[in-house]
């Protein structure tokens, strides 16, 4: 079954009708379709969530390569355990909870092994390793440099936030999750979420202020 998913994911020869039908469905219906034997539904879920999850994990852990690995791990877990997913709940919350736990584990492992942290940070700040495809190529070189510098500053500022603040901050500001969803994903109560978010916003504003004023 996995092999079929794989082939269909890579091959463009997916029936347009089925694909269109899947694209029109909400997450719950796509999950139902997959559990009902429609293997292409899994590709649809991957397509919907890969970029969102990648950005969420990347902003949380700050390592692009590792973020891709973790997002793949998320999809493997989804594939394995989708039959156990409680369909009365939101699929996106479930998938973000998996991603959030993996990101937290990654950060915990790093804190136990400072060498890994150092190597990761060092690699992250090497220019040749940083993705350039998101730059606006129509801008002048000095504008590009300024934008790139600003992006780096923003990323570094986010990375300076405490882990549990950053987590909530990214889920709210980048992913647009509601407080309730964040509470469910991070397994905290609503008051804690609000408090952490408020502190994270204030801290982030303080950290980044000298660079933007």
């Amino acid at each position: 079954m996995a092999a079929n998913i794989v082939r269909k994911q890579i091959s463009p020869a997916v029936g347009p009708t089925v694909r269109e039908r899947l694209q029109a469905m909400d997450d719950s219906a796509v999950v139902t379709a997959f559990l009902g034997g429609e293997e292409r539904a899994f590709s649809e879920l991957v397509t919907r969530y890969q970029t969102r999850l990648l950005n969420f994990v990347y902003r949380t852990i700050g390592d692009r390569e590792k973020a891709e690995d973790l997002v793949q791990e998320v999809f493997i877990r989804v594939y394995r355990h989708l039959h156990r997913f409680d369909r009365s709940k939101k699929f996106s919350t479930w998938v973000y909870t998996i991603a959030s736990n993996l990101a937290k584990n990654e950060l915990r492992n790093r804190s136990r092994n400072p060498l890994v942290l150092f190597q990761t940070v060092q690699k992250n700040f090497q220019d040749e390793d940083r993705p350039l495809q998101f730059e606006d190529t129509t801008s002048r070189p000095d504008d590009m440099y300024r934008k790139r510098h600003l992006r780096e500053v923003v990323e570094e500022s986010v990375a300076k936030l405490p882990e549990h603040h950053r987590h909530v901050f990214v889920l709210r500001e980048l992913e647009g999750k509601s407080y309730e969803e964040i509470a469910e994903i991070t397994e905290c109560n609503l008051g804690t979420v609000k408090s952490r978010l408020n502190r994270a916003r204030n801290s982030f504003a303080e950290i980044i202020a000298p660079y933007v004023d």
Partner: protein
Amino acid sequence: MDCREFSEKHLAFVDDTLAGIELVRMQRHISECEGCAKQDSKIRRALLLFRNLPAIEPSTGFAERLAARLEEAHENDLLRETTTRNLRRGAVAATFATLASAAMLAYIGSTLYQTEMTRDVVMPPVVALATEPDLSPITTSTPAIVTSASAGLAIWPVALFAEEAPVRFAHSRFELAKLSR
């Protein structure tokens, strides 16, 4: 509204989830308090920067790597399933063997116990209904000879020899019943 209240409600203010009257009070406080107004704009500007960070896209090999990992995971699942099934079968066989052994031991134990119990059983006395035949003594006029032959000899020559042998040396009265008892 004071600055503390403003700070407490700022989260909802930025997220635009305040009720109408609260919203008006917050806006009025900003227009009156320079410090809170600065803080508000600082946070809003910072959030704007963060929210406008360019999104990153999965790398070109992402789909292929995911495909390979999914296939590998699927194979591992199959392997694990087979192993679990075999282990379950083994466990069933082991349970069956254990139960059979236990049953056998129980049977042997109960048999030994029963043997122990029935060792001293007293059987009822046998009542003989047939009368003992009256054994009449063998009477011959001539003395008989009793002989024996080793097992290595053929029986018929021995029998003939015994029949034809002179019997005068033996006593004529020979009570078989007495000898056999």
